[in-house]
């Protein structure tokens, strides 16, 4: 890892918003809530490690994400979408960022890519695990675990997420090749 003082590099800003009727049983108000600000910050920080900011001095990259429908795994999906959008915008990035969510149940059962219903089971019954990775460089850009897990189970969760991310990465790369006609990453 290279350490540098980023006084002249660019900045990354992210604005994440749930659309008013995107979630079941919740009305998302027009103003950005605390939860959305937190998600925005997580995505911005993840992207900061991927975008080659030294190529954009004194500029700002603004990523605007609208979640139209929430059926589980929103944070991971937002990361993947943001990453593909950056490539489409021809902003120089080190690698793709692919996110994957799993739901870990007490007893060891893992559900990859849970639906909203599966995600919202009580925290006493398990934990939600989100991971975002750079598939070619094998680096973790974001990680979030909500709910209790034992230390030994952390490895299982990370491995399950990683595998999920690699599978999605293959599909995303294929799509980019077809649409952009050049090898990404």
């Amino acid at each position, binding site marked *: *890892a290279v*350490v540098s*003082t980023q006084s002249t590099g660019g900045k990354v800003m992210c604005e994440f918003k749930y659309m008013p009727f995107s979630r079941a049983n919740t009305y998302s108000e027009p103003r950005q809530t*605390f939860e959305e*600000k*937190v998600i925005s*910050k*997580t995505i911005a*920080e993840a992207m*900061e*490690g*991927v975008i080659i900011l030294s190529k954009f001095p004194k500029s700002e990259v603004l990523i605007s994400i609208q979640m139209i429908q929430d059926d589980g795994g929103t944070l991971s999906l937002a990361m993947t979408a943001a990453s593909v959008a950056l490539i489409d915008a021809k902003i120089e990035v080190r690698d793709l960022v692919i996110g994957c969510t799993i739901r870990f149940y007490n007893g060891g059962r893992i559900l990859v890519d849970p639906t909203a219903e599966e995600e919202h089971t*009580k*925290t*006493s019954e398990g*934990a939600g695990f989100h991971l975002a*990775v*750079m598939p070619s*460089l*094998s*680096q*973790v*850009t*974001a*990680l*979030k*675990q*909500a*709910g*209790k*897990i*034992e*230390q030994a189970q*952390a*490895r299982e969760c*990370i491995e399950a997420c*990683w595998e999920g991310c690699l599978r999605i990465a293959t599909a995303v790369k294929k799509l980019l090749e077809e649409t952009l006609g050049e090898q990404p990453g």
Partner: protein
Amino acid sequence: MTTRLSNAEIQYIVDGVEQDFRSDGRGAEDYRQIELETRILPNTNGSARCKLGKTEVLVGVKAEVVDVDVHAPHIGKLVITADCSAVASPKFVGKGSEVLENDLSNVLSFLYNSTNTISLNDLCIVKGESCWQLHVDVLFVQCGGNLFDVASIALKAALYNTTLPIVKVSGEGIEMEMEVSDDPYHVWKLDVSNCPICITLYQIGGGFAVDPSEEEVACSEGFVHIGVQPNGDMSSMEKAGAGNIDPTTLLEMVEVGVRVGEEIHKQLNKQLDAEKSLAKL
């Protein structure tokens, strides 16, 4: 809070961390001395002051009786808010500290997101009607790095000595009467045996360290907050900060974080229990 370092200083710090011998002589897993004082704010239900290095934090817990949440009629509420005092830095005047405060409030609240950290059921007074709402206010008086860990330790200590008045409920339905005792000795305490503390591990160069100084934070790329419970379970985990983390390093961080967390819990509980035996309550 921007630290200016020369390239030589950065290299010195990074090399030190990688070789487990930091610039102040500590190893990568060593915390500085933690000072803790409890029950210092008489108008709160529980309070604590914690000092680590140059960071000083004050936590106050206040309880009030409120209506239950429609979606969760059998549990009480816990609201954690962080505030960076302008005393800590001139940058915190007005809205300057808003981003940092949101961050802190989020991470500290997230620590307690799991139902097995603190029993919110205990805070329920009358199911479907009233419950206790605990307002935990974390005030940063001085900021010298490692804010999250210090705040979480002070938080646990404050909750440990939080006393809530006993409520007598009589009658039912419309005739229900609640009497909150105002006898200062007629109180009950929360069960904090599962409360987590936050251990933040910063990735510096090819290695990682806990409890970094401000200079070490400036050299770091990415960090991980782990909510460690006394029995070694993890109540939450979050990677933050710009910079990517290697997966092998991540798993090592988890292992070290849990180990260090368990040790701090042991020491903290020992001191809090010792203090309890001194009190006349």
